[in-house]
């Protein structure tokens, strides 16, 4: 689509009705001039605020449109800014107030992860203040998203990250609706409701924690996000992205390791009651009294590795719970590293070699002594 020149000057009289594309930066221009003030994206005030210095490139290219006054930013026709709030990370908090333009979408092309590459060219104004502003923005976004989640009737058991390309926040495991429904078929209505209440409680608690940010929550979030901010976001196969904070890596993927992991799980966690480990196992000889079409006892036996899955999902939730479902993490075993004894021979060989071989990269964290 054609990019709207007037919008780029900050003065498009059609606003959200405009037929042309309202894009903040023409990316071709940026590459040519080598300048990018992409940090303005977060605040969306590019055209409106006279305090920002207007870079010379805008005047150069739009000289022929002098008839559109470029200095009159407070004009009532300048509704150009409202279109941009779609693709900044803070915009989600506005989605209740924004008018949803049915015919135009804004492109997210400006705030993709490759922005980080061009941002490096900027002279650092004050790196500390910029970073703390970023953090403040991050906390704000997380807090607001958590506040909106329950009232929006969204699926509650989902992972969450505060912005695109950022890692998921800890403590919120990804559970699909089908998995929840499976519990109903396995255990019958009563048990299902109880389990659901417990699981919902865990999630609500975590969301409340994230919503009313305590210092503790903030510091844990920062330490979790720390690596992702510094690392090059375009390095797809970085070790961190493989072993990220997501809980899905905690459960082993190879068959051999499954069998090995389970005995250690059960010996270390005597506090896990029947409710946890049996969640994905068929209800043993429980007659299904409520009138349901599929009797739960007709299920084929599920192998043990899945039984531990739900327990492992909640491993990363902070251990202050007394609820049986929350396995108050493996106190005698650090979940960040795997024991050397638990690794298979090929995994051990991969860790010990100089570099990983593609296709054989282990799915579990290395043992502590192999980390330098």
């Amino acid at each position, binding site marked *: 689509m054609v990019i709207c020149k007037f919008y780029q000057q900050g003065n498009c009289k059609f606003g959200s009705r405009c037929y042309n594309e309202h894009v903040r930066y023409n990316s071709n221009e940026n590459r040519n001039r080598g300048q990018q003030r992409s940090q303005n994206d977060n605040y969306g005030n590019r055209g409106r605020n006279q305090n920002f210095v207007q870079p010379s490139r805008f005047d150069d290219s739009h000289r022929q449109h002098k008839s559109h006054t470029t200095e009159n930013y407070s004009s009532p026709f300048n509704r150009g800014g409202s279109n941009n709030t779609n693709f900044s990370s803070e915009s989600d908090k506005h989605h209740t107030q924004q008018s949803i333009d049915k015919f135009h979408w804004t492109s*997210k092309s400006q705030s993709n992860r490759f922005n980080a590459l061009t941002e490096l060219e900027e002279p650092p104004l004050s790196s500390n203040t910029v970073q703390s502003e970023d953090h403040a923005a991050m906390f704000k976004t997380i807090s607001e998203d958590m506040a909106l989640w329950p009232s929006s009737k*969204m699926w509650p058991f989902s992972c969450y990250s505060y912005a695109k390309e950022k890692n998921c926040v800890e403590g919120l495991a990804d559970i699909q609706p*089908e998995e929840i429904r499976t519990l109903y078929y396995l255990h019958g209505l009563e048990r299902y409701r109880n389990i659901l209440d417990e699981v919902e409680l865990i999630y609500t608690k975590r969301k409340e924690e994230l919503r009313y940010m305590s210092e503790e929550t903030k510091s844990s979030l920062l330490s979790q996000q720390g690596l992702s901010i510094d690392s090059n976001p375009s390095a797809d196969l970085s070790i961190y992205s493989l072993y990220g904070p997501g809980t*899905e890596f905690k459960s082993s993927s190879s068959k051999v390791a499954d069998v090995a992991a389970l005995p250690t799980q059960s010996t270390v966690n005597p506090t896990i009651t029947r409710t946890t480990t049996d969640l994905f196992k068929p209800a043993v000889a429980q007659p299904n009294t409520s009138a349901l079409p*599929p009797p739960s006892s007709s299920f084929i036996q599920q192998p043990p590795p899945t039984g531990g899955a739900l327990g492992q999902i909640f491993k990363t939730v902070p251990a202050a719970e007394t609820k049986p479902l929350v396995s108050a993490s493996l106190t005698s075993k650090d979940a960040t590293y795997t024991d050397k004894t638990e690794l298979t021979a090929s995994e051990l060989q991969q860790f010990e070699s100089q570099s990983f071989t593609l296709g054989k990269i282990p799915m579990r964290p290395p043992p502590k002594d192999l980390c330098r």
Partner: protein
Amino acid sequence: MANEFKLNNCPTDGISSVKFSPSTSQFLLASSWDMSVRLYDVTENSQRFKYEHKSPVLDCCFSDSVHSWSGGLDGSVMMYDLNTGRETVVGRHNNSIRCVEYCSDTNVVVTGSWDQTIKLWDPRSHNNIGSYSQPGKVFTMSVCGDHIIVGTCGKSVVVWDLRNMGYVEQRRESSLKYQTRCIKSFPNKQGYVLSSIEGRVAVEYLDPSVEVQKKKYAFKCHRIKENGIEHIYSVHAIAFHQRYSTFATGGADGYVNMWDGFNKKRLCQFHLFPAAVSSLAFSNDGSMLAVASSPLYGAELSPSSNGEDAIYIRHVTDAETKPKTSSGLA
């Protein structure tokens, strides 16, 4: 003349997936939580075949016009021959099978499971060709030419080249902030559409070069504002019209929207269906859209069904599915 009708003998419990036959728009396969997989004759509006699994079935697909493959909660991969009426259990996963897809370019059936692996099966010999581990439980899959795109928990998206499964071709993160619900690839194989539980859909491209990646975008949909509070619904299903490359999305709100991904416009919205839309499928020629609607996939977690599970077949017109080219616009 009614352009939409409901199928007779619909499954008695939630419908997890509907697929049209690859060669004709006459036959439709439907898998359901009532443990059955049924084949419907759409032109006559009758049920032709039905076979049962031992547990709810989560996905099904055609490997060719006479063979159907399906998998469910018990992890067994079943193949059914529509001519002989014989069922064969081809293999197993360690945990429930979530998706079953067939790749015609490489003639292989792929099954994705919550045991964090995908397995490849040869449709003729019924052998397991390979098992490949994924970064998390497989939530959704889509075949894209000779590639397969797998969406897992934790917002990971993995692209595999089916001709060379020795390594992951691309490993990416979903660009949305919440759980991935469905992924479908464009007919031109340039990219895919990803939907999440947060009423948002992202259009992404496979080519990792910077210029192409700049074209990706996301938009909000399936949201309803009631009393000042915006209700956000999961986008459960995506289906592409093979000829026009426009796509339909179905959500837990019960609406189906048609979108033009290249011009970034919504083409139309169909009427409200009685329950949440769980699955969508276009026929090969694009003349018909099957809409599976099940209260099981609605916004409430309560298991009691307040509506009925039904499959609606709609004859779609060009006006609804064809991209609009207006003069005077760029």
